[in-house]
């Protein structure tokens, strides 16, 4: 297939969706042009666009001038896969990255696998197939050159988009073979590069959307503008446990710019619910109008009567229910090794502590929104979604359409953090478009967004450790409870390091919707566990790093049980690395240090955090962070992720909470929901990657979970007070 495109600039091509729906353009603009480009070299050169494209496969198109377009299949939520996934293809294709244009793919399950952003899995699960995709396209180019030059393919080499035949001295760019290559046979098996020959992977590579972001170009779902598009907003019940009873939309409807007030039900009889359809309020009141501000005003004029359908929960109730649960054994343990009861009875010292954390809202900076245009036998959806494949199933079921009648284009997302795994807002947009018979952009206000969440659940966990006379940990017990599930991972560290081990999980039902929030469960349990072990090490009279290393040593030499969900060597490796890099053990006056380590999403992270007290308030001066995520595809992008996770983790452990009174969230905007700000971020973060050549694992989440404990442990050193309840800033010792 050959496609003609208009002349475009590398950093500013017109984006035409690959999805069905007929030449959909989401308002991306052409910016800059070659002649007036005064940007520094590090931005990369402007490119002349080819006359035509030759498609090697669904991912790779090559122009006759050698310019390459690589599709990025997965949703981009700020984890930078739109840069790193195409880098992997470009590496095996063996092209010059400066010659590459990256384009976001829409949902296309015929051509792409796992188009999902979640669990820090995009790179890990895409690694092999993306490499093969690049290598296969390269092989097709080689086949074309071998044929044209009449030489054996084995005598050809490539470098930065040029094919060479050494003995004849022939050279040719990919562009000149692209047309012939497109009709070559797609090879079954291909040889992949030896990682030591990587030229793009492992090299700092800037965000492919960096210039557009810095220029404020339309990239996000909220930026979509379409001919005839109406703005829709929802009014949801004021409390979890309520639903719509009666609507009087007359006053709202009479307001300027307002088209209609309707109610929708997104989960009608027979709706085929996907796991991603987490939604406390399937029935909503909707206002549709011409402009955002007019609809916002009309929203205030709505008169809705609500009715209670189940109990209205408050944070105080959650606290006492969770406290009751962690005080009781479960019917069946999640894991039991040895004889914990007996071991505790014989222990010299027992340490027991309970840790708490509140609900958290996701608070992506871009509130939930989605564009939908439902017409006869067709639905077009555009917007920020981490789970487009599941969204399509939900929309198909809601509208009674076949999946192939629905197109979904993912926009760059103003944050995800798990919130946009649950695409009810996109289903709502489809329901609204169908009901009002017009293209609509559904926009949540910040208040809608914060009070209709799929929140990080409130958690509580109790730890108990038994030490022998030498301070060795001989027994360990963890019992966790949370809304909709326990935070405890029974097979993670320190399981496997203690002969007598017991893990128990309690869950509390709730009508408050909860879901994955950046590093689900780990985001709380790592802070609790690593704070607890710090305290246990202190009671045992041991250095906290040595104490942990001794446990890993045990797991390396003689692990307890078989289901241990971590590699103790890699775990110990990051701890040793951070110990060395931070100069652990050297006292600095006024600096208080805490350490923490955690393994989740297949990657290992250890951190040392330095805190200083300034006017009675803590200031994080520096964080040292060692990471083992295998091969690092894009070191600069990876560092950015790690830094972000650390800042985000400190912020939420320190400042953030969502509480409930009678089913209503007490915080609905950033005046009452506190997020970390500039002055509260660490002055400096230094990141060290373990270089081990192992296939890459995820990085969007793993740096967040341990940092809360590194902070708590440092704050203990600074204040003499152990912190058990998040957010820490509300603890007396830290009120300044």
């Amino acid at each position: 297939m050959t496609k003609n495109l208009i002349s475009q600039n590398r950093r500013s091509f017109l984006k035409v969706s690959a999805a069905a729906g007929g030449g959909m353009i989401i308002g991306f603009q052409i910016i800059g042009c070659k002649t007036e480009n005064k940007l520094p070299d590090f931005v990369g050169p402007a490119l002349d666009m080819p006359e035509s494209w030759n498609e090697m496969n669904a991912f790779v198109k090559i122009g006759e001038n050698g310019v390459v377009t690589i599709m990025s299949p997965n949703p981009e939520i700020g984890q930078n896969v739109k840069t790193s996934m195409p880098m992997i293809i470009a590496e095996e294709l063996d092209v010059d990255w400066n010659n590459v244009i990256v384009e976001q793919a829409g949902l296309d399950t015929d051509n792409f696998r796992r188009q999902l952003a979640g669990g820090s899995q995009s790179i890990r699960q895409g690694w092999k197939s993306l490499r093969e995709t690049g290598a296969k396209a390269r092989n097709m180019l080689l086949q074309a050159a071998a044929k044209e030059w009449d030489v054996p393919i084995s005598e050809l080499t490539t470098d930065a988009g040029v094919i060479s035949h050494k003995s004849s001295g022939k050279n040719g760019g990919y562009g000149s073979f692209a047309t012939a290559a497109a009709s070559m046979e797609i090879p079954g098996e291909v040889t992949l590069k030896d990682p030591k020959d990587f030229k793009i992977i492992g090299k700092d590579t800037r965000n492919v959307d960096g210039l557009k972001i810095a220029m404020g170009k339309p990239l996000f779902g909220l930026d979509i503008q379409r001919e005839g598009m109406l703005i829709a907003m929802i009014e949801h019940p004021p409390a979890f446990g309520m639903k719509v009873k009666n609507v009087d939309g007359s006053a709202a409807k009479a307001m300027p710019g307002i088209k209609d007030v309707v109610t929708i039900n997104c989960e009608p009889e027979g709706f085929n619910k996907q796991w991603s359809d987490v939604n406390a309020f399937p029935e909503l009141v909707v206002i549709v109008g011409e402009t955002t501000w007019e609809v916002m005003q009309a929203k205030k004029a709505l008169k809705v009567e609500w009715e209670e359908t189940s109990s209205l929960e408050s944070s105080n109730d959650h606290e006492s229910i969770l406290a009751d649960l962690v005080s009781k054994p479960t019917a069946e343990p999640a894991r039991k090794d040895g004889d914990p009861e007996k071991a505790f009875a014989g222990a010299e010292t027992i340490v027991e502590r309970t840790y708490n954390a509140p609900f958290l809202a996701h608070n992506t900076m871009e509130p939930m929104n989605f564009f939908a245009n439902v017409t006869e036998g067709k639905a077009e959806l555009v917007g920020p979604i981490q789970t487009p494949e599941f969204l399509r199933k939900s929309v198909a079921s809601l509208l009674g359409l076949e999946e192939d009648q629905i197109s979904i284009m993912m926009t760059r997302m103003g944050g995800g953090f798990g919130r946009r795994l649950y695409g009810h807002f996109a289903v709502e947009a489809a329901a609204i478009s169908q009901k009002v018979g017009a293209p609509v952009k559904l926009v949540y206000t910040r208040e809608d967004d914060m009070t209709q969440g799929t929140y990080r659940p409130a958690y509580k966990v109790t730890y108990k450790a038994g030490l022998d006379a030498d301070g060795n940990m001989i027994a360990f017990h963890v019992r966790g409870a949370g809304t909709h599930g326990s935070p405890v991972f029974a097979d993670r560290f320190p399981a496997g390091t203690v002969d007598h081990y017991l893990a128990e999980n309690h869950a509390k039902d709730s009508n408050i919707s909860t879901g994955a929030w950046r590093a689900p469960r780990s985001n709380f349990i790592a802070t609790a566990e690593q704070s607890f072990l710090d305290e246990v090490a202190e009671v045992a009279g041991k250095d906290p790093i040595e104490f942990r290393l001794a446990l890993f040593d045990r797991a390396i030499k003689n692990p307890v049980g078989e289901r241990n969900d971590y590699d103790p060597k890699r775990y110990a490796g990051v701890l040793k690395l951070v110990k060395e890099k931070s100069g652990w053990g050297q006292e600095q006056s006024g600096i208080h240090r805490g350490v923490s380590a955690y393994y989740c999403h297949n990657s290992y992270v250890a951190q040392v955090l330095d805190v200083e007290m300034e006017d009675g308030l803590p200031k994080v001066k520096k964080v040292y962070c060692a990471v083992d995520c295998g091969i690092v595809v894009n070191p600069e992008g990876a560092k950015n992720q790690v830094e972000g996770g650390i800042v985000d983790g400190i912020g939420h452990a320190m400042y953030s909470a969502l509480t409930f009174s009678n089913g209503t969230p007490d915080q609905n905007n950033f005046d009452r929901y506190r997020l970390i700000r500039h002055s509260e971020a660490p002055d400096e973060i230094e990141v060290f990657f373990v270089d081990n050549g192992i296939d890459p694992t995820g990085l969007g989440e793993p740096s967040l979970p341990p940092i809360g404990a590194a902070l708590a442990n440092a704050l203990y050193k600074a204040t003499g007070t152990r912190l058990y309840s998040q957010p820490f800033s509300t603890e007396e010792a830290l009120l300044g």
Partner: protein
Amino acid sequence: MANFNLNVNGENRQVDVDGSTPLLWVLRDHLNLVGTKYGCGIAQCGSCTVHVDGKVVRSCTTPVSTIGDSKVTTIEGLSEDGTHPVQVAWLEHDVPQCGYCQAGQIMSAVALINENKNPTDEQIANALQGNICRCGTYIRIKAAVKSAAKYS
């Protein structure tokens, strides 16, 4: 509804809206300048930061009727091609993650740099304290602000 003649990014633009409409929505919905973002609507997050006569303003709580003859500058007005020193510094440090807050961060940084070419850490934090980044790019923002002066 009333007519307002606005000076936006050096151009005269006319809109017919209710005077209470915040500048943010005039920019986004009426002038198709969507670089200025909505994040909270109550002057708490900084996503909507623009300049009015060179001063930082949260456009989400600035009624269009208060603008008068003042000059409005949005992210789109900083440069034609991304070559404003602060934009270049942002590229150098590869600041964004999701990118949503960055237009607001950049606008706050530009106002700071216009007054103070070599701000200290503390001055940077003070000037940008009103701009939230959920992705946590604060350290890169600080580094970018510090190197912006060299591209002037």
